[in-house]
């Protein structure tokens, strides 16, 4: 097992592996739109866009330990910011992105202030009721938002020099924004802000004693997270070219949380996996029945929380850990009779040397999970136990 972790996890090899992964991922990402049919490219675009929202939610829930059941509302705010700017002021697409980001950042900041006093459940309550309240509000502000009819705006147009089809161009634009957003999320977590966030999640009082400014960081976590959701919403408007209040019901908020949990909380690439889920589970299971996506999602969330709290992203690590543990367990078992003849008197003591071997690796394997090792500066394993 030791050789395995060193091979995977240290020094130059690890750097090489990371570089290789990035190269392959980039090659696949760039090649994809030339290989797939337009509709599939559209689906991939949506996956990327959801990944941005989930990365934001992950900052708050996975790394910040605060619960939001209302991120669909920030997503909607971003989408409407872009749509209204395009519809009324004809600003062009590029200008809408910083506006949506800044607007949602401020909105998140506003929500972050009550979030300071609200812990866990209460924050979930407030954000949920905000998500429920938003669609009727959007319908009411008809003069700006177009009411329940929604707004239809221009999609992205490929410039002539690119020679790309519309779906391909849209894909590349969204890919670029997503890449920047994910990189930003990653770097944010490796910075002072990220470390403070983790400290607050794991032990609020201890973090405060260590000099982390609680109020500032909890509010900022909400703001950053809302900003990512807003950017995703803005991309949504670019891609779909249509927004209506009913596209952003509170079901969206719940689906986002569900996707994140299934993909993997507090994991750096969990949001990508989760986004694929948010996109493909409904479209695949919808053929069975209208209710099938919900049944699948609901069951998956509960199952994931029971058996794999680290989500899909953590699954390889957990499986690897379990396998190496199994190997480890059998190895000392072979040695037992020879190595410890003093114990080897009968079948009963034979069971005892096993237990230290069992507890030993399980304690060392967990922190050496490749998933956690990847997120090394981030450090903390996902929360599975009460502190």
């Amino acid at each position: 097992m030791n050789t395995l972790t060193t091979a995977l996890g240290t020094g130059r090899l690890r750097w090489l592996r990371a570089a290789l992964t990035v190269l392959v991922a980039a090659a696949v990402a760039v090649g994809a739109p030339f290989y797939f049919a337009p509709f599939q490219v559209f689906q991939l675009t949506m996956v990327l866009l959801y990944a941005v929202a989930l990365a934001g939610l992950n900052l708050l829930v996975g790394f910040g330990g605060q619960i939001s059941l209302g991120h669909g509302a920030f997503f909607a705010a971003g989408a409407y910011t872009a749509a209204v700017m395009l519809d009324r002021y004809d600003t062009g697409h590029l200008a809408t992105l910083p506006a949506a980001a800044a607007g949602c950042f401020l909105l998140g900041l506003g929500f972050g202030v009550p979030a300071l006093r609200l812990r866990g459940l209460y924050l979930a309550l407030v954000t949920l009721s905000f998500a429920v309240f938003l669609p009727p509000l959007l319908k009411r502000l008809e003069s700006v938002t177009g009411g329940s009819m929604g707004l239809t705006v221009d999609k992205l147009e490929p410039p002539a020099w690119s020679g790309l089809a519309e779906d391909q161009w849209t894909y590349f634009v969204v890919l670029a924004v997503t890449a920047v957003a994910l990189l930003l999320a990653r770097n944010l977590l490796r910075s002072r802000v990220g470390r403070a966030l983790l400290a607050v999640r794991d032990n609020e009082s201890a973090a405060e004693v260590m000099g982390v400014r609680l109020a500032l960081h909890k509010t900022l976590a909400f703001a950053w997270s809302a900003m990512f959701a807003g950017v995703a919403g803005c991309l949504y408007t670019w891609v779909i070219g249509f927004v209506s209040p009913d596209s952003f019901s509170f079901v969206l908020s719940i689906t986002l949380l569900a996707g994140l949990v299934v993909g993997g909380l507090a994991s750096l690439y969990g949001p990508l996996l989760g986004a694929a889920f948010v996109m493909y589970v409904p479209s695949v299971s919808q053929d069975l029945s209208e209710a099938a996506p919900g049944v699948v999602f609901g069951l998956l969330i509960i199952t994931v929380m029971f058996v794999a709290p680290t989500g899909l992203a953590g699954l390889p690590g957990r499986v690897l850990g379990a396998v190496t543990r199994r190997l480890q367990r059998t190895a000392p078992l072979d040695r037992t009779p020879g190595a410890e003849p003093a114990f080897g008197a009968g079948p009963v003591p034979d069971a005892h040397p096993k237990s230290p071997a069992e507890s030993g690796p399980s304690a060392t394997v967990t922190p050496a999970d490749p998933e956690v090792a990847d997120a090394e500066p981030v450090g903390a394993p996902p929360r599975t136990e009460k502190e």
Partner: protein
Amino acid sequence: MSTVTDLLQQVVEGLGSGAVYASLALALVLIHRFTGIVNFAQGELAMLSTYVAWQLVASGMPFWLALPVTLAVSFAGGMLVERIVIRPVQGAPELTVVIVTVGLFIFVNALAGLIWSFTVKDFPQPFPDGALDLAGVRVDWSTLGIIGVVAVVMGLLYLLFQHTSVGLVMRAVACNPASARLSGIRVGRVLMLGWGLAATVGAVSGVLVAPVLFLEPNMMGGVLIYAFAAATLGGFDSPVGAVVGGLFVGVAETLTGAYVDVIGADLKVGVPLVIILAVLLVRPQGLFGRAAVERA
């Protein structure tokens, strides 16, 4: 109609819907007292119970016979949910528990859609048509009926908790699970009982509100938000608070809908948001709740 009777009319209607919120809020509070969990799936469980009642009535059973059967089924269902879904995460961080109940919410909602489809169904009105005229204020029999049923449920719960040995045991567990276990109480069973009771009380709210809202899988979504507001206002650990909070939220909702033009009927759902925010910022433990003192 004079303004005063008009106002009273709105208040009466508010009390009618408030009684429904109170009953779902009571279910939330029961579970919170026993397990410290806020059950986001409470409304959906109530909706599922309502479908059971609808199915029984649709297959020819008279309503007043279908009701006790439904309540019994809900009780068993609630116990089952505790045992299968909640027990494994008991003691896990709040985040985990909330996510599990959200998962349950999605699952139950979709399950109802899978079995009974998403088309809206008529639910029989158990109370007679017509109304009582109290000095110009029209009080529908159905409103009186709803308030009456909720009052009966509350009375029964009060008797159960204060005057039976089961109630005593349940209070002991809610108060201090560890000590209760040490004095020989089977805490796990009591928790199951608590969830069963909560599901039953929730089912009452579902059955009462179904004739008004019409039955469909998303029926309880809105009601749940109001019930959250009611429980927050009353305090999440106070049954009395849940009832008072429910009635208050109902009246506040109706009055704002009727008198504040900017809000109107469509934005009424903002009322619970404002109430929740105001309570949490001013008096986070709610009107009747005790402030939790936490040791780090």
